[in-house]
């Protein structure tokens, strides 16, 4: 955030491009639609044989999700997000209700499923729940702003987040549960919770992780299912090529590594084409990009994410109120954490958690959630612009 002349010109462009009332962050839109385009092309090329007779099935659906998502994003961006603060209890209750409903349906059909089948896509409450939880938590934190330094506040907020996370975790969706916790922590930190509380919470998580993964199994208590432990620790010993986890990790590394500098192209992407790469249109979409377009392609995708992260980070200081700052912080944590865990998994430095790559992975629920979040960000941006419009723009440019 240094090159002031460029930034100024960007701001100028923004000003001429968007009228104050419709203000949308154009750079964020560039990042978003750039990622959507790459996603569609990557999915289109890697799923041609998955559905017999419909080579473009997944690509077409992904485009449809993107179109619906864009409409949702634009619609949300027109509303003042601040009004959501009134509905924080309702939002939280809705999130809990969705997740409980999923669990009940799963119990009724005797299947462990984290989604509800709807006509057009599988509705995944744990995905939508991420945004709902961020909104609700932002509201709760702002309410207790005066007592933010108290341990009681930190405990209450964390309990709200952990309660939701626990519901998601039993679905079982360990990945989304961890997203909930990370979002809550980040929001507390940005809101100004004492550093000791944050440090204490981090220490608590570290201890419980060791307990669950190492101490409890040694004592004969299995909190997590063996395959979950396997997935969480598999990346630490990649050479033990015996189980499915390390197999998937190795295949992903081979895919990305074999892309070399400029990629193998569509025709020679054998890791993807011949199905050595697992789940290549969902969890391992980044490996597809790495194999097909090489370091250049992977770097391009990362740059677009960096752009998105930068624009979101900027909203934290720009938002017209703390509620907006906290929502932006929660969404930033969600995006950055998912990026870190998903890409980290594909390159073998993070465990397998089933976390999708926002805007890249195939999936309606993931897309809808991300676009709702983006709509909120655009709303924060627009509201900030309006607020600044009344107060002068000097601050924005700082």
């Amino acid at each position, binding site marked *: 955030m240094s090159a002031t002349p460029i930034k100024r010109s960007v701001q100028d462009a923004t000003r001429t491009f968007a009228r104050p009332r419709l203000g949308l962050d154009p750079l964020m839109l560039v990042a978003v639609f750039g990622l959507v385009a790459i996603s569609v092309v990557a999915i289109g090329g890697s799923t041609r044989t998955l559905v017999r007779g419909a080579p473009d099935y997944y690509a077409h659906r992904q485009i449809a999700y993107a179109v619906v998502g864009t409409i949702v994003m634009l619609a949300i961006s027109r509303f003042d997000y*601040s*009004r959501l*603060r*009134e509905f924080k209890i309702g939002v939280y209750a809705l999130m809990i209700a969705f997740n409980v409903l999923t669990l009940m349906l799963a119990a009724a059909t005797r299947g462990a499923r984290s989604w509800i089948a709807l006509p057009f896509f599988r509705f995944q409450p744990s995905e939508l729940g991420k945004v709902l939880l961020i909104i609700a938590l932002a509201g709760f934190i*702002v*309410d207790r*702003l*005066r007592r933010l330094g108290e341990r009681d506040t930190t405990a209450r907020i964390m309990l709200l987040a952990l309660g939701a996370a626990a519901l998601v975790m039993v679905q079982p969706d360990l990945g989304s549960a961890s997203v909930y916790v990370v979002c809550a922590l*980040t929001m507390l*930190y*940005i809101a*100004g919770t004492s550093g000791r509380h944050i440090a204490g919470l981090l220490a608590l998580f570290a201890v419980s992780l060791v307990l669950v993964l190492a101490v409890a199994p040694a004592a004969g208590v299995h909190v997590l299912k063996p395959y979950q432990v396997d997935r969480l620790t598999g990346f630490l010993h990649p050479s033990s090529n015996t189980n499915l986890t390390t197999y998937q990790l190795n*295949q992903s*590394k*081979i*895919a*990305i*590594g*074999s*892309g*070399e*500098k400029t990629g193998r192209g569509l025709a020679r992407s*054998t*890791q993807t*084409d*011949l*199905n*050595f790469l697992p789940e290549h249109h969902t969890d391992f979409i980044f490996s597809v990009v*790495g194999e097909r377009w*090489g*370091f250049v392609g*992977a*770097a391009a995708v*990362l740059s677009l*994410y*960096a752009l998105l*992260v930068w624009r979101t*980070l900027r909203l*934290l*200081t*720009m*938002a*017209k*109120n*703390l*509620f907006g*700052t906290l929502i932006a*912080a929660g969404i*930033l944590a969600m995006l*950055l954490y998912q*990026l*870190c865990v998903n*890409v*980290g998994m594909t*390159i*073998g*430095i993070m465990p397998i958690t089933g976390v999708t790559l926002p805007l890249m992975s195939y999936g309606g629920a993931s897309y809808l959630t991300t676009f709702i979040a983006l709509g909120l960000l655009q709303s924060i941006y627009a509201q900030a612009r309006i607020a600044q419009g009344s107060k002068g723009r000097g*601050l924005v440019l*700082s």
Partner: protein
Amino acid sequence: MIDPEDRRAQSSPQLAMRVAILGGIAFAIFGIIFFRLWFLQVLSGDQYVAQASSNRVRTVVVQAPRGEMTDRNGNVLVENRSAVSVVVTPQRLPQDEAGRHALLRRLSWVLGRSTRPADCQFGSGDTATHRMLMPIECAVDQSVGALPYADVVVQPDASKAAYTYLSERAEQFPGVSTEDASLREYPYREVGAQLFGTVGQIDADQLRDPAFRGIRGGSIVGKGGLEGVYDHYLRGVDGEQRIQVNAQGQPTGKRLPETLARKGNDLKLSIDLRLEQAGQQALKTGEDLAHGLGNPANGGAFVALDPRDGEVLGMGSDPSFDPNIFAKGVSDRVYRQLNSTESNFPLFNRATQGTYAVGSTFKPVTSAAALSSGVWDVNRVYDDIGTWRSGDQVRRNAGGAVYGPVDLTQAIAKSVDTFFYNLGGLLNVPPEGHPNGGPLQEWARKFGFGRPTGVDLAPEADGTVPDPHHIRLLQDEQRACERRHGKANCNIAFLDDTWTIGDNASLAIGQGDFLASPLQLAVAYGAIENGGTVVRPHIGLAAIGPDERVIERFDSPPARRIDIPDLPVIQQGLRDSTLAGGTSADVFAGFGKEVFGKTGTAQITGKPDQSWYVAYVPDPVRPIVVACVIQNGGFGDQAAAPAVRQILSQWFYGHPGRVVAGSSTTT
């Protein structure tokens, strides 16, 4: 509704600080990912390219067809038939025991094999362990135990239906694949079945053998017989097909460069198919004749040689079997059945591995020994009174015959036992100082008895030439046996026995402990025919490459030359034996060729006699020597001689001719 608390200084220093730290964390995350990508894609990219390529390319070995075997006239005796074999790759089977068992069970159903657990033996000898397993499971586990990384052919010749079923459901049968294979086919079935040997996957012992260096585990190689001896020529060079496969191991249809399989060289044999067929039939004829006379003839063998160079023109053993069953893979049960008393061991090649007392057919050898050592001469006449005495031993002619004065020629022609007992007595040497016996043993060995002939058909029996040393060996065996099992269970030798003149007399008429194979006898008579050259019999003539080019001609130099004194006299005796007054005159009456022959009737205690006949025809263009034995077939003239007549008839006239039964009851 907006809470006033939510209003704040928009860029408080604390917030800016926290946002900056959050930005720093984001920057660090991006930095780590970038460096990791750089490491994976730029620094170690080529290594992952190699891994990706080894992932997708599976090398499939294309089995090279083995060379064919033809007879001396180009008739195909052993050929190939293309088939589909079902192969299991043990490492790619499900790892869990239950899944693996279920898969092999389904595979058994598809292949129509039994799923009932049966005894499955691991290892051999004292360390063998047994488990109850399905036959296919047994085959896979046995192979894994012996050669852990080799593929296992569980069905060499799968049906079309099984092939279609498995190819369409490859993903349901991980670790199971189908391969094009070529199987051995034997169009003449039982004819010469014991000669060819079998083919099969290379076993652990062969893999260690330098002769098989460079051969990959799981390759098909020759085992036993001509397949084994000439494997180096018959075996082709396997090709490699490189196919692209997906993660499920299914071929994607994309073709990659491949190396073609090169067929092995054909092997031209010295065998004459027609003679071989006639010989096999003649054995049956001989047995039938013996049965007609009330003898329980149960098997036989013949060998026909070219006496000039030892080329085997025909060789057969009865009972025989259809080797085509081995091409398809033979079950343990069938294999045990083929190696049992009930089936009378059809796999056993009686012509080379069977050893028998040869009876009077040995007499020419005794004659040569007597003439050469000077204990007898051609003009000397022996006055037969029907018995021969030595000490308290008394031996008689067969049937109590009395021949009066006979010379050597007549003694051979009429097969006068007392004459040769006498020679045996004269040729005896004291056992002290002569552990290997005297001239008789020496001449027996010169003619090739008691040692392998060197035929290109392993294994081969040595036979036995009895001498004092031999008796001592048996007594050592008896002692060892008594130590282990007690006296009552060992009937090998008498410990107080010594070599006597009687032993030498028995040897003189091919009895006692003397044992020889039909092949050895044919070689010995070959030396009588050709003037003293002991040939090294051989069946392989040449390796024939593609486009009929001769790759290598297999020369077989004679084993040795011997100088037989007064050979024409011995030959005359053999000639006279097929003429009026000879022992086989009735069988060869009107044959139209000069047949030199000798009957043999070897007595075995408690059993009917072995019926022998050995003959040669010194034809200037097509000389031949034939030896034939009918086990427990009675007198030589009754069973073996008629069989030999048919074989000779086939050789000279192109048809076996009528059956001429003999009635001579001399030995």
